[in-house]
């Protein structure tokens, strides 16, 4: 059976007032390129993640060819690259239709894509030849930061030149994309402050700023991804009120506040000033309002689910909602200092990161790619195959998430504090059952995500080829 969405929500629908000649705003070609290369990054990123998880069980596995100090940065960099490419691709595709203006410059968007991909390939090559920058999450040599920064400036120019007029009249997702794009540049530059001697030679300052930049950087891509989710929901439901309501803007500003100030819950164990931690704790607890809002709207979510469950992108958004709930609950719990003392530096933190990047970010971005493929490009996907991929991804991710929590709890129970696991090899042996579950479910997750994303790749590549012919 093939799934094809009704054409009632195609891109051609967006038109200027009847008195003027009708104009349409088809998705940017560069946007499709970004989503295509993003999916390739995701698949390779997952593959290296799987290799890394096997190395937990079998330390000698491919130890000469691709040791863990290579598989981990490859996994992390490629998956983060997927999120940025997916978010940038979605923005390039949907921003013009959202504001009823053409993209300011398709050529600039293409230069952005070329710079991003060439830099990405350079980073992969540098890992292969053991050249590292050695900073957490940004493990590539520092000179790669230059093209990354330049390429990001291109999307800033393109985006703000496209939306042009007063930001205030636009729906929340236009704000979220805008603040997300800017916040990434700020946090990315901040993460390189260690190059200055006053940071480099001060351990506490360096660690604190590193957590600050990395924590807020995650918030910046969340803004872009959640903005995309809002856009998709508006297009699927046809309801334009939600993304313009006071309540939605209240939660947008609450999210932004958390982006700017809640990173400090990562630094409870760092001997920086106490007020940094107090601010973080208070701000983190405001997330309870977001959690409460999800619970409050649960019944409405179920009603919407019954109405839209046949819509492929909606099903992915619905699954991401469940993951938002689970991760938010976990995030609030580990933001409590007494709990954080035992969970920080354990696989519980990894569970939170994986639940967020796969369960939330990846599912929303896949929803965006499916929306583009089915609704806008009017292509079909096999429903049986989609169902298999959908359930395999979600069930294996749940097992994966629980196994990481399990390994984290074993470590928390063993340690007097996070730095004193002794001997570490004993902890690894005691957690073997959890690491096995994490590796097997990681394999199933790779299969599930491949089933979901390979058909998209085929559609996008055909589309790109058709355009270039």
């Amino acid at each position, binding site marked *: 059976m093939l799934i094809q969405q009704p054409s009632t929500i195609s891109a051609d629908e967006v038109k200027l007032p009847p008195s003027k000649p009708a104009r349409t705003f088809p998705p940017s070609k560069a946007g499709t390129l970004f989503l295509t290369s993003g999916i390739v990054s995701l698949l390779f990123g997952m593959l290296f993640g799987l290799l890394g998880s096997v190395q937990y069980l079998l330390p000698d596995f491919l130890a000469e060819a691709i040791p863990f100090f290579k598989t981990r940065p490859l996994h992390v960099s490629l998956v983060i690259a997927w999120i940025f490419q997916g978010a940038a691709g979605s923005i390039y595709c949907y921003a013009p239709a959202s504001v009823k203006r053409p993209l300011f410059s398709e050529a600039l968007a293409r230069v952005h894509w070329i710079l991003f991909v060439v830099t990405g390939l350079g980073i992969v090559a540098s890992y292969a030849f053991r050249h*590292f920058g050695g900073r957490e999450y940004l493990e590539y040599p520092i000179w790669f930061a230059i093209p990354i920064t330049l390429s990001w400036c291109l999307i800033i120019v393109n985006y703000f030149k496209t939306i042009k007029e*007063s930001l205030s009249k636009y729906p929340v997702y236009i704000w979220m994309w805008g603040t997300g794009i800017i916040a990434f540049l700020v946090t990315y530059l901040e993460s390189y402050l260690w190059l200055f001697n006053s940071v480099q030679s001060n351990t506490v300052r360096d660690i604190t700023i590193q957590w600050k930049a990395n924590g807020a950087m995650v918030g910046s891509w969340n803004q872009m991804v959640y903005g995309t989710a809002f856009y998709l929901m508006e297009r699927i439901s046809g309801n334009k009120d939600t993304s313009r309501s006071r309540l939605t803007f209240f939660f947008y500003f609450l999210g932004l506040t958390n982006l700017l100030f809640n990173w400090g819950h990562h630094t409870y164990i760092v*001997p920086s000033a106490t007020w940094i931690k107090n601010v973080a704790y208070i701000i983190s607890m405001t997330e309870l309002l977001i959690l409460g809002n999800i619970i409050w709207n649960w019944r409405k979510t179920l009603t919407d689910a019954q109405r839209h469950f046949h819509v492929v992108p909606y099903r992915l958004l619905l699954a991401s909602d469940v993951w938002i709930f689970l991760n938010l609950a976990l995030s609030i719990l580990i933001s409590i200092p007494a709990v954080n003392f035992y969970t920080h530096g354990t696989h519980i933190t990894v569970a939170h990161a994986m639940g967020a990047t796969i369960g939330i970010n990846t599912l929303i971005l896949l929803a965006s790619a499916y929306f583009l493929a089915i609704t806008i490009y009017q292509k079909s996907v096999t429903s049986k195959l989609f169902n298999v991929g959908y359930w395999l991804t979600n069930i294996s991710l749940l097992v994966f998430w629980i196994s990481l929590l399990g390994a984290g709890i074993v470590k928390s129970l063993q340690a007097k504090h996070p730095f004193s696991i002794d001997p570490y090899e004993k902890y690894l042996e005691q957690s073997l059952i959890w690491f096995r579950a994490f590796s097997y479910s990681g394999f199933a997750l790779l299969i599930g995500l491949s089933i979901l994303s390979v058909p998209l790749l085929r559609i996008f590549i055909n589309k790109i080829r058709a355009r270039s012919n």
Partner: protein
Amino acid sequence: MRRNDKFLILLALLVMFLVYTASVYTRGTELSENNPMLDTAAIQGKVLWQKYNCSSCHQLYGLGGFIGPDLTTTISRKGDAYAKAIILSGTKRMPHYGITEQEADAITKFLSYVDSTAIHYKR
């Protein structure tokens, strides 16, 4: 919500963020007796820590990979000599990198500095 209100809120958040960031960069993370300035050898060790991508497997203050132990307090718990021996020879899980004696000394020095800041766990 009126249009201008949104900009006012955004502006207020931005100003608070700038003040907060400036405070974090200065007063929140000052050098002190418990947070001494790294000397040249320790900085060299830090550069090597990054060059060998040690954080892919090890953590400092919870920042890094989890396949190896957190090394924030490893020097006070295990001693310089133990740390240096592991750095030089590797373990079942840790590859032998071919690190020189001089490099091992510098990395150990860096770890000693980090350790000296971890006052929360030595009370």
